[in-house]
C-alpha cells in the first residue's frame, strides 16, 4: 500500500510537470506530446488506484483514457488541423513564458490552499495526492486557454483542464457509474473533433489559427 501511495505521488509530480509543460512550451507539436504524456500519467494513476481500492471502474477509466486521449484525440487533431499548424515553432501568446511560469507557480499554491479544507473535512487517502494536483492542473489548463493565442494550444489547455478533473476524480469518486464515465469519455473526443473542425474552418477562411487575434467582435 505504501509503495502504491509513493508511486501515485510520483505519478502526480510528473503529471504536474507535464501540465506545466503544456503551459510553458513554445512548440505546438511539443504541446500535443506533453498532453499525451499527461494522459498516460492519468492512466497510470487510475491503474494504481484501481489496484489499491480494488475498483474495476478505475481500470475502465484507464482503458477509456488510453483509447480516447492518447490515440483518438491526437489522431483527430492531426487529421482535422492541417500539418502546417504543427510546424509552427513560436506559439503566439499573451504573456511571456517567465511571467506565465510565475503565475503558474502561484496557481499551484492556490490549488493546495483550495484543496486543504476539503481534505481536512473527509478522509479519502489518495485524495491527498490527487485532489490538489488535479485542481492545479485545472487551474493551469484554464490559464493556458487564457494566455495562448493559437487554436490548437488553446484546445490542449482545455483538454489538460479535463485531465485535471479526471486526475482528481479517480481519487475522490472511484465508483462513478460506468455509464457516466463512458458518456464523459465520449464527450472529450467530441470536444476535440468540434474544436478541431472549427480550427480548420478558421484556418481556411482566415488564413490563420491565431484565434486570440480575432477581435472583430467587441464592445468599444
Amino acid at each position, binding site marked *: 500500500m505504501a509503495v502504491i501511495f509513493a508511486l501515485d505521488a510520483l505519478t502526480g509530480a510528473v503529471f504536474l510537470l507535464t501540465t506545466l509543460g503544456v503551459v510553458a512550451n513554445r512548440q505546438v507539436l511539443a504541446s500535443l506530446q506533453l498532453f499525451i504524456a499527461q494522459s498516460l500519467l492519468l492512466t497510470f494513476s487510475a491503474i494504481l488506484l484501481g489496484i489499491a481500492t480494488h475498483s474495476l471502474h478505475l481500470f475502465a477509466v484507464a482503458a477509456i483514457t488510453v483509447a480516447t486521449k492518447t490515440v483518438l484525440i491526437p489522431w483527430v487533431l492531426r487529421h482535422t488541423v492541417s500539418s502546417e499548424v504543427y510546424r509552427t515553432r513560436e506559439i503566439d501568446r499573451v504573456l511571456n513564458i517567465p511571467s506565465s511560469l510565475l503565475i503558474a507557480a502561484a496557481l499551484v499554491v492556490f490549488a493546495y490552499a483550495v484543496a486543504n479544507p476539503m481534505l481536512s473535512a473527509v478522509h479519502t487517502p489518495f485524495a491527498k495526492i490527487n485532489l490538489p494536483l488535479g485542481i492545479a492542473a485545472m487551474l493551469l489548463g484554464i490559464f493556458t486557454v487564457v494566455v495562448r493565442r493559437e487554436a490548437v494550444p488553446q484546445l490542449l489547455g482545455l483538454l489538460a483542464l479535463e485531465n485535471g478533473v479526471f486526475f482528481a476524480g479517480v481519487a475522490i469518486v472511484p465508483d462513478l457509474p460506468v455509464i457516466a464515465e463512458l458518456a464523459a469519455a465520449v464527450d472529450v473526443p467530441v470536444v476535440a473533433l468540434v474544436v478541431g473542425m472549427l480550427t480548420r474552418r*478558421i484556418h481556411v477562411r482566415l488564413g490563420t489559427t491565431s484565434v486570440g487575434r480575432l477581435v472583430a467582435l467587441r464592445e468599444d
Partner: protein
Amino acid sequence: MELAGVLFFPALACALSLSPLGRHGRAAPITLIGSVIVFALAVRVAIAAAHGGHIEAFGEWLTCDGLGALVLGLVALVAMTAALFSWSYIRVRAAHGGKRKEQNYYGLYNLFIMSLLAVPILANVALMWVAVELTTLLSAFLVGFEDTPEALEAAWKYVVLTTVGAVLALFGFLILYWGSRIAGFEPFTWVGLVEAAPRMPPALLWPAFLLILVGFGTKVGLVPMHTWLPDAHSQAPASICALLSGVETTTVLYVILRLFPVVGGVPTLDARPWFICFGLLSVCIATLLLVYVRDFKRMFAFSTVEHMGIILVAAGLGGAEAHLGAAYQITGHALAKSFCFFSAGSVAMTFGTQEIASVRGLVKFAPLSAIALAGGAFAITGAPPFALFVSEFLIFKAGIASGQYLTIALLSFFVAVAFCAVLYHVNRMTFGAPHGHPTLAPLPWSCKATLVIAAIPLLAIGIYIPVVLQNLLRAAAAAMGG
C-alpha cells in the same frame, strides 16, 4: 412514455433530414413536423406535471417534475417556432453554401434540440452534465453557420469558454458525488442530492456549489463570464439565436436553480447572497452595455444577460412568491426573447445589416417587421400587458414583502434603465427618418408566418394565464425550494 418520445422524435427527424429523404428542401418540413410532435408530447408531460404527477420512463432514467416540465415545454415551443422560421430563412441564407448545407443545418438543429430537451428530463446528474455539454458542441457549427470571420470567431469563443465552464461544473458534480457517497449511498439524482445534502460535509458542498455556479454561469452568460454571449447570440442565424437566447440559457440556468434546494438543506450555508450578487452584477453590466450597443441583435443578447440576472435575483430573494416570479420570468423570457430574435432576424434580412444606425424608418419599409420589433421590445423590457411585466412585478412585490429593499431598489432601477435603452434604440429604428432609399430584400413567407404565430402565446399569457399553466408554475416554484 412521452419522455422517451421527446428524445426519440428529434433523433428520427435528424436521421430523416440527413438521409436522401431530406434532399430538395424536404428537411425543413420534416423538422417542423418532428418539432410539432415533440411539442405535443411536451404539453402532455407539462399537464401531467401540473397536476402533481410524477412522470418517468425507462425505469428511473428519465424523470420530470414541475420545473423540468416547464423548461421542457418552453424548449419544445421555441424549437417549433424556430423550425418554422428556419424553413425559408435558412433556404435563403444557405443558398450559396452548396447542396448539403441546408441538410446539415437541420441535422444539427434536431440534435441540438434533442440535447436541450434531455437536460431537464435526465435523472442522473452526470448524464445531465453530458447533455449540457452536448448542447454546446452540437450548436457550435450552428453558431458558425454563416461562415463569416465574425461568425467563426463567435463560434470559437462560444465553444472554448463554455466548455471550460462546463468542465469546471463537471468537477463540481464529482465533488457532489463524493459528498453524497460520504453521506451514505443515495442515487446520484437531484432528488437523491436533496436528501443527501444535510449529511454532506459543508466543506465539500460549498466548493461544489461555487464551481457549478461559476461553470454553468459561464454558459448562462452571467457577468463576468458573459463575454462570449453577445458574440454568439448575434452572429448565429436568427432561428438559432432564438434558441440560444430564449431557451438554451434558461436550460442551463435550470441546473443552477436545481442546486438551490440542495444547498438550502445545509443550515450553515446560504446560497442566496451569491445568487443576488451575481444576478445584480449581471443586470447592472448588461444594462450599461445596452445603452451603448450599436448592433440590434447584440442588443437583444445583452437583454438576455439582464434577464438571467433578474431570474437569479428572484431565486435568491427566496420564498414561494419570488420563486413563482422566477418561474414566470423564465416563461416570459423564453417567449419574448425568441420573438425578439425572429423580428430582429427579419429586419436584418430585409435591410442586410445588423447595425442600429443603418436601420431607419422601418415602419415605412417593412411594417410587419416594424410592428414585431416594437412589440418584441415592449414585451422583453417588461411593459404591460406582456408576461414579463407581471413576473417582474411579482418579483418586486416578493422582495419588498420580505424586506430586501436595497436589492429591489437596484433591480428596479436597472430594469427601468434597460427599458429606456432598448426602447430608445428600437424607436429610432422603427420611426426614425430614413436616410436615402435603402435596398430592401423581400421577407420570405415562413418568417412572416412565424412573426404572427409566435406572437399569439406571447400576447396570450400576458393577458390570461390558464389554470394548468398556473399550476405548472407553482409546481416549478416548489421545485426551486420555494
